[in-house]
């Protein structure tokens, strides 16, 4: 009990003092996860929308893959990326293993299926409603995609936040491909795992608190977006 109280107090001190190491870890976490989510959106929006709208060869397979990868454990994704980037792997020459770039790749792989699968569902629902009108206007495939993605923007925002939530909280993939190297690839989740195992509860708790706050903020934003969109039912 005493150590716990002590740990909480120390965690507070670390946070209040804007501990440099702590800030570095938080910064890297945000950079890696936000970049991964950005990549996931650039790929996932058009991919999900295309699967929803267009019939093309392999469409069923893509849909199946998306849904499968949506629930893939981060360690498995980490392992796959590790194998690709390791010296003996096909992309070994790039020398990316144990760099933030490797972590971004791994998290992008984790998040893209989530964004794409949610986008597919959202766009398919909207297409059911808009389809005849867009057909009647003789909208080109690009115009259809553009209309649906734009009009689904509020729902898509929640898909993005879901993806970010998954990225920032996962530990398995970044641990394997990043290696949790101090001042290089250490992020919040891997730091928590390490510090806890070393018995350094204060740092672990401080980082846990930051993660919790981020989760809280993300969910608050989701609520806000939904509530606001709901009020303007019209636009959501």
């Amino acid at each position, binding site marked *: 009990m005493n150590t716990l109280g002590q740990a909480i107090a120390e965690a507070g001190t670390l946070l209040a003092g804007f501990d440099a190491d702590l800030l570095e870890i938080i910064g890297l976490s945000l950079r890696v996860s936000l970049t991964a989510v950005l990549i996931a959106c650039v790929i996932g929006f058009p991919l999900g929308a295309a699967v929803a709208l267009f019939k093309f060869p392999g469409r069923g397979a893509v849909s199946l893959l998306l849904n499968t990868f949506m629930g893939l454990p981060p360690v498995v994704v980490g392992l796959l990326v590790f194998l690709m980037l390791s010296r003996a792997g096909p992309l070994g020459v790039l020398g990316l293993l144990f760099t933030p770039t490797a972590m971004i790749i791994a998290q992008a792989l984790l998040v893209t299926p989530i964004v794409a699968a949610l986008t597919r569902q959202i766009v398919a629902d909207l297409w059911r*409603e*808009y389809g*005849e*009108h*867009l*057909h*009647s*206007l*003789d*909208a*080109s495939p690009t*115009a259809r995609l553009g*209309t649906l993605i734009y*009009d689904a923007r509020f729902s898509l925002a929640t898909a993005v936040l879901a993806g970010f939530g998954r990225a920032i909280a996962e530990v398995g993939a970044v641990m394997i491909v990043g290696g949790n190297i101090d001042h290089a690839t250490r992020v919040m989740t891997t730091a928590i795992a390490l510090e806890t195992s070393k018995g350094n509860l204060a740092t672990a708790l401080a980082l846990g608190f930051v993660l919790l706050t981020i989760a809280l903020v993300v969910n608050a934003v989701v609520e806000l977006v939904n509530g606001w969109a709901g009020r*303007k*039912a*019209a*636009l*959501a």
Partner: protein
Amino acid sequence: MSTRQTILPLEFRRVVYEADGTRLLHDIDLTLAGGRRTVILGPNGAGKSLLLRLAHGLLAPSSGDIVWRGAGTRERVIRRQAMVFQRPVMLRRSALGNLTHALKVRGVPRDEGRERARAALAMAGLSDLAHRPARLMSGGEQQRLALARAWATEPEILFLDEPTASLDPAATRAVETLIGGFHAAGTTVVMSTHDLGQARRIADDVLFLHKGRVVEFGAADRFFEHPSSAEARAFVAGELLW
């Protein structure tokens, strides 16, 4: 609209529509000429909506041909048409946004699009609601907005599927006035309705469908005064029939 070559008349040649092995429309043969107001009548399930969707190209016939016989058919014929649905499709945008979107999709330059959209809103009496989210508008306003949207695209032929089915008398009158505006501008109008009074007010021609067949097609006066089939007589008399 006026200077271009027409895509009309529209001809159905032995058009059959089937779904899940059921024949829903049987051997439809008909010709719709330009400039007229044709009202499609028939009990629920007769095939009115299917016929409109086939004509507009939203559905493809199972067999038979739907042919636009006019000279102006070198460009995409669907771009010369518009359709207003019973429950109009309202984009999650403002009233004005719904119109500018349609014009943008049709390749109208931005400035001209805004101008045409504004003019169409004014024509439909919706100028004050230009910035209201379309989905928050009342049923009657939405229907007028759908008509304004169709108007903005300057169709040569307008299809309407029960455009006043859930509107009150005032809103119905407003919609009928707008339909009159299309007719006055030279647009060919094809609409379905259950409202016999409305059919009498609007129709030049009546197309009477029953169980997926065209039972009567001809001048409205004759249809209402001397329906030649027993089904049409019962329908005009207001007796239910399936």
